[in-house]
């Protein structure tokens, strides 16, 4: 695989000596334009990588916050095509921030893997996280994506034992996403000490950066977790702030973009401290 924006970004941050802030936003939540405005504002607010959620009707591994975000987006007509278009519009104004699409396999399978990869490549997608495609299914999407120089980022979890870890790391590229708890997104906070030990364990087996997610909500947590990892992923907390800013009909208000970016700025401070 050729070097992607993901590899470049992690290398830059390693130079700077601080972990990456990886932010998750659901495409089309609560509507296309608002999510584009948020994503466009993320790099300046301090996001180093952006995960863009592809909404799915049956998000089996997501907690209530991200489930609802996906439902809002779908109710407003978000589709995989529109999500790819959104990335394309972002790329017009930002050539360097890595974009990782995150979601479930069915909408991609439905579009056709070849068509999807071609479009994703052309709009500037750098990586994919597909929750329901384990290594056993690498032929489906992982290998074709890597062939097109799109990273396939794998999740490892506390249930990934030493026997399983090599299988998971094989064909993983970009970075390794360590899910700090067994559970769904937005669940209980992880214990930074345990997380650091797990990250060190994974790093002994791979040269890839390791980012930690699931359960990180505040700048303090981002700092604590960031001290033991190459990146901190924040998703449910951002989505919850967005939800709280909506009016009774579930529409965006003047506060929506502002509040989300404000949280990201705070998280960025936490991550910066982790490098000091």
């Amino acid at each position, binding site marked *: 695989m050729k070097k992607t924006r993901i590899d470049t970004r992690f290398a830059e941050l390693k130079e700077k000596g601080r972990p990456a802030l990886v932010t998750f936003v659901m495409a089309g939540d609560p509507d296309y334009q608002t999510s584009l405005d948020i994503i466009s504002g993320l790099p300046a607010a301090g996001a180093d990588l952006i995960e863009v959620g592809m909404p799915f*009707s049956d998000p089996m*591994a997501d907690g209530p916050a991200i*489930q609802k975000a996906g439902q809002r987006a779908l109710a407003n007509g978000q589709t*995989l095509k529109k999500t790819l278009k959104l990335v394309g519009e972002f790329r017009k104004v930002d050539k360097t921030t890595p974009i990782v699409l995150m979601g479930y*396999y*069915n909408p991609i399978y439905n579009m056709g893997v070849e068509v999807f990869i071609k479009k994703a490549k052309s709009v500037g997608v750098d990586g994919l996280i597909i929750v329901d495609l*384990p290594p056993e299914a690498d032929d489906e999407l992982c290998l074709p994506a890597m062939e097109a120089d799109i990273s396939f980022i794998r999740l490892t*979890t506390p249930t990934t*034992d030493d026997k399983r870890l090599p299988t998971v790391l094989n064909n993983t590229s970009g970075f390794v996403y360590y899910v700090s708890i067994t559970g769904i997104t937005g669940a209980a906070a992880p214990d930074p000490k345990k997380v650091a030990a797990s990250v060190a364990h994974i790093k002994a087996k791979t040269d890839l950066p390791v980012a930690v997610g699931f359960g990180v909500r505040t700048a303090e947590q981002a700092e604590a977790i960031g001290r033991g990892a190459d990146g901190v992923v924040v998703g449910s907390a951002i989505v919850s702030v967005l939800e709280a800013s909506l009016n009774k009909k579930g529409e965006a208000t003047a506060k929506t973009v502002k509040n989300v970016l404000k949280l990201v700025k705070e998280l960025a401070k936490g991550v910066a401290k982790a490098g000091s």
Partner: protein
Amino acid sequence: MNKPATPNSFRTGPDENGHFGIFGGRYVAETLMPNILELEQAYKDAKADPEFAAELAHLNKHYTGRPSPLYFAERMTEHLGGAKIYFKRDELNHTGSHKINNCLGQILLAKRMGKKRIIAETGAGQHGVASATVAARFGFPCVVYMGKTDVERQSPNVFRMKLLGADIVPVTAGAGTLKDAMNEALRDWVTNVEDTYYLIGTAAGPHPYPELVRDFQSVIGNETREQLMEAEGRAPDMLVAAVGGGSNAIGLFHPFLDDKDVQIVGVEAGGLGLKGKEHCASLTAGRPGVLHGNRTYLLQDDDGQIFEGHSISAGLDYPGIGPEHSYLKETGRVEYVPIMDNEALEAFQLLCRIEGIIPALEPSHALAEVVKRAPKMGKDQIIVMNLCGRGDKDVFTVGKALGFNL
């Protein structure tokens, strides 16, 4: 899609990665992979252990009441004026449906694996009741996820589960039906993966579930073969069963898949008709996709978002189908047809009046197809239909549909 070449045998699946042709597989979050691999190994070991088979056979006989009778429906046969009609009476099982066959097998697996807690999803509540039953029998705590809509329309089963000591969690996500309950059960499993056994109720989900559920349900088809041999000295001409997720159907069909002369028909819920979204005929009106751990036929929109589906029968209210059925459809071995809500309601009433049996709405769909086919067949021909559940739970739904105020 191209029709695959006819295989030498239809009974060899799944392969080692859990595929039936292109269908099946293991599409789950990484958190669950070690567990699914552990379950696969545990099932392999159990299959090789004669004690496991002996314990299950003992429970099937003394706890469930197997073998269930194969009943010659004389008056129905006369009424339809064609083929001889036999009912495989799994509605007489303990708990009132075929679901117990699978639950007993899986609870023995959970015990072998040293799990401490059982979770299950349920639509009509039949699988929830059967799960709560075996959990009580073996002393496991049990949590049943049930869509809020289903909790409301199946209240007698909700109460039964509570009596049996299970905790019922109403699921409000989505339309609050079976698929949403399954999502929520998967979320519980991802969270409590170490000590929890997920007792899936139908022949769907990630490998090895479609295989093991089929194997535990195959007792239906194996008994049928033996009983019909005794009664008629031969195999049937036609098998008919309802398919929601497809467990009762695969249980009846599987032992006969390589009997070339046996015609096999699966009956899907046509709901209010196939034109809109108000049905659950995933094989007739859906297309392949990936959901709940397996590739199979699904009801979905242009973007690959899954529909909720509709059926008057909560047990058929699922937008997918077990992967082996998708394979049997594509190879042409089994014919799948839809039956509408109103046709099922008519068949339900017919069976009550003619045979004195109140069936569940699920096999009422199968019966509606038998009503269409039997008159066109010769009097020397034989249809076996799986009467997979009894109708006590549906009395309120049917009453409402027929305008009775209960």
